[in-house]
């Protein structure tokens, strides 16, 4: 049994379904030719269609349709060759038409599946309910004027894919893994940049709880518009505990929409079911049903890149990596490519350790991106070559790597410049050993008396005296021989 929350009456299981809104990577909006750049002055990317002017009509952006199909295929989902755009009617100041064009009864993508990788190496299949295309609303700015709200319609009409999971997630951790995996797939496909800070990826979480062992689905609450994985996890945990408390004190949960306050770490009621909008969905008469050519779907399918799951599988087989190491490397397409460049013609395990270890650490510390790495794949590969040919010990390599960060210098140049070449000359190492033994007769006596633990101390001392350049294997061997005498 996985994640359970302890209540006063017993253990509770959490049931979570996620609705992720992913902005389609497209230069223009879903139904108008207006640009979609992030930032810019308010209302400078708005066409008359986006502003809901009289007589303006939507024209579907074929590129966005292709991206939705591409995403659907990437989620192993059914592509619906006929889908219908519907109007979701409600009044709000940043919704210029008074309705959002979305898909309701017939979405472009049907059921699919997404696999999440658990930290213990297990995988879990999470059902995808549907993916549909819809337009975004504008933005209301309530803090610009004491009594007025300002409206920015730059986002109005931007294409979104709403990706709805089945209620298959059972813990905040799984929810986090699901979002991360979905984001990874979207970025591999290039259909969404996955930028949560800029709002390109937003998440609504549907949360309910049930006593351990039960299979019922209890009343859920929807937490709207959470914009980071951490916040989604915090919101789910808070909400689940809130439900448990209410159930255990004899109360009932009302179906409602809630907002997450990341400062107070709590969810608050936004509107109850009674106050919920009646969206009056109906097919948009301005748009004909969307009919896809099966050939177009086939062409997109044939052009799909290798996706994280397949790549991970290949990495474990081809490079002999553990599922965990492989999973880390494939999370971002660019890091997987970085790894493959480094690993090509080299020791795979060594390459994997260096990429996931020192390189990722340096990447995180430098604040750089994999596209503009602190050490290039070529230079890292060369460093590994120097380890393999015995020029550098692992320890020396770490020093060289630290010097490489942020410079464009190759490992071999740094080795020459700093004289960091490993000492493999037996005579030189023996001379260093002699010096250390001579300077520490008391410790030599202790070792001879059986205190083997001091061997490590001697190794360290010799290393120190050679500035770490002594070949560790040779040093161990020679030192052992010396004490055997």
């Amino acid at each position, binding site marked *: 049994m996985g994640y359970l929350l302890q209540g006063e009456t017993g253990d509770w299981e959490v049931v979570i379904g996620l609705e992720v809104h992913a902005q389609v990577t497209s230069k223009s909006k879903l139904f108008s030719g207006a640009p979609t750049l992030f930032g810019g002055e308010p209302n400078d990317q708005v066409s008359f269609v986006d*502003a809901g002017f*009289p007589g303006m009509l939507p024209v579907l952006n074929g590129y966005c349709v292709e991206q939705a199909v591409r995403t659907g295929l990437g989620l192993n989902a059914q592509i619906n060759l006929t889908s219908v755009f519907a109007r979701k009617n409600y009044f709000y100041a940043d919704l210029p038409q008074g309705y959002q064009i979305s898909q309701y009864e017939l979405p472009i993508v049907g059921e699919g599946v997404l696999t999440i990788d658990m930290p213990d190496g297990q995988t879990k299949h999470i059902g995808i309910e549907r993916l549909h295309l819809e337009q975004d609303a504008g933005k209301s700015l309530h803090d610009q004027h004491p009594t007025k709200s300002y409206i920015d319609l730059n986002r109005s009409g931007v294409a979104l894919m709403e990706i709805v999971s089945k209620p298959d997630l059972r813990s905040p951790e799984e929810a986090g893994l699901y979002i991360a995996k979905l984001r990874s797939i979207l970025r591999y496909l290039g259909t969404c940049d996955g930028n949560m800070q800029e709002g390109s990826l937003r998440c609504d979480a549907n949360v309910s709880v049930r006593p351990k062992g039960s299979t019922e689905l209890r009343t859920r609450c929807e937490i709207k518009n959470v914009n980071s994985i951490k916040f989604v996890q915090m919101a789910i945990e808070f909400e689940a505990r809130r439900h448990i408390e209410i159930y255990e004190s004899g109360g009932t949960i009302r179906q409602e929409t809630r907002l997450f306050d990341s400062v107070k770490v709590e969810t608050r009621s936004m509107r109850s079911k009674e106050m919920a909008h009646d969206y009056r969905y*109906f097919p948009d008469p301005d748009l004909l049903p969307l009919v896809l050519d099966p050939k177009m779907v086939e062409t997109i399918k044939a052009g799909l890149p290798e996706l994280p799951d397949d790549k991970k599988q290949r990495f474990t087989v081809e490079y002999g990596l553990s599922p965990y190491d492989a999973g880390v490397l494939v999370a971002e397409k660019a890091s997987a490519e970085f790894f493959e460049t480094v690993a090509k013609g080299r020791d795979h395990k060594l390459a994997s350790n260096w990429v996931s270890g020192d390189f990722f650490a340096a990447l995180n510390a430098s604040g750089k991106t994999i596209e503009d790495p602190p050490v290039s794949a070529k230079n890292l590969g060369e460093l590994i070559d120097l380890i393999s040919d015995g020029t550098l010990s692992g320890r020396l390599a770490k020093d060289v790597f630290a010097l490489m960060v942020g410079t464009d210098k190759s490992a071999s140049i740094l080795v020459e410049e700093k004289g960091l070449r490993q000492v493999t000359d037996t005579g030189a190492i023996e001379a260093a050993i002699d010096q250390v033994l001579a300077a520490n007769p008391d410790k030599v006596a202790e070792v001879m008396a059986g205190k083997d633990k001091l061997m490590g101390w001697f190794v360290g001392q010799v290393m120190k005296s050679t500035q770490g350049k002594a070949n560790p294997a040779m040093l161990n061997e020679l030192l052992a021989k010396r004490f055997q005498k």
Partner: protein
Amino acid sequence: MTQLTSLTIAEARVALAKGEFTAQDLTQAHIKAVEAGRGLNAFITETPDLALEKAKESDQRRKAGQVGALEGIPLGIKDLFCTKGVRTTAASHILDGFIPPYESTVTANLAQAGAVSLGKLNLDEFAMGSANITSHFGPVINPWKRKSDPTAQLVPGGSSGGSAAAVAAGLVMGATGTDTGGSIRQPASFCGIVGIKPTYGRCSRWGIVAFASSLDQAGPMARTVRDCAIMLGSMVGHDPKDSTSQPIAVPDFEKALTGDIRGLKVGIPKEYRPDGLSAEIQAVWDKGIAWLKDAGATPVEISLPATKYALATYYIIAPAECSSNLARYDGVRFGLRVEGKSLDEMYANTRAEGFGAEVKRRILIGTYVLSHGYYDAYYIKAQKVRRLIAEDFANAFKTVDVILTPTAPTAAFALGEKTDDPVTMWLNDIFTIPTSMAGLPGLSLPAGLDGEGLPLGLQLIGRPFDEETVLKVADVMEKASGFSIRPKGV
């Protein structure tokens, strides 16, 4: 110059080509007629200066040898078409001060053909009405008068009432109309002119203020079938900006007017003879059938059984779409805003003051039929019936080439009549609505006068995108009818 305003477009075209007068002369004459005809309240916005400027440009083009299909022809534009730089009202208070920064495709096409706009014509508010009495700018008066009571002010029909009255009274040579359930054909019938609603998808809806998107269609209104054919050719065409506009080649509609309808089969639907149909309407219809027989066509009785549900179905689908289409008039970005203490209050104040009673009625009905729990019973069922109506026509057109019916159940009535109950008013469109529901082309032409001396129209319905047959048959009937009477009540 008064004779210039009684010319047909076809006649004016010849005279302009011969240089008998200029586009500026023609426009000036019509500007005078518009001024003289202000009592009809046909115009919401007159644009005489702009018209003269355009007429001058037209004369220059003609001199340069560039002659469009409507070169120098003065027209009126229903004030539902957005016109760049010219106030557009949809006859509603809620669009106060709205000057579109864009031009509708249809009016841009007309301008491209050389037409000169004299201004924006009155209509029912948001094209919702059958008598042109719901306009925020007051009712339009029909230029026709009853013999028995020449002082009674008659309605021109609606919603394209301003267009019909202006054409009938000679204020313009032709006008644009829009038709959702009969808004071109019924006023054409009431005012003794010709009007055609083309097949849905023939004209672009881009830039036309939407009422019911799946039904709205623009079309020409003029004094003769030929004039409608000329105008139609310049209005239609595929427009990538309207996803429902069909990529279909534009035929030469005028060429279709061959005068030869021998061998054509004309459907006479028995369901269009309801009990209580006025004897005068029946007589005109019979006369129309006789003309067609004389011209060598064969009348065939047909059945369109779903017809009886058409009106009820229409008053679910059209309001449903209207309730959503009119949500954008919220006081936020353009038009009227009546302030309130909150956003919701501002919406309520603006829409309460901005919309008239008929528009509100339809928004309420539309909101209701789309609501949770009612959607299946009303909207979905209505869509199913709509398909049955279309199937009825499709079956009929397996055996007939065109269908002949009355356009409206009555002649023009007086202001104040039939206003006690909205359903009575809605019954005006009982013969035109089925065509709209099926998306078919429908034309009304004047076929005679009733006992009060008021025009009565007949409707011709064609196959999808077969406006040519409709126009051809109408042309033959027009000649047979010899209808050339013009109203005197300007």
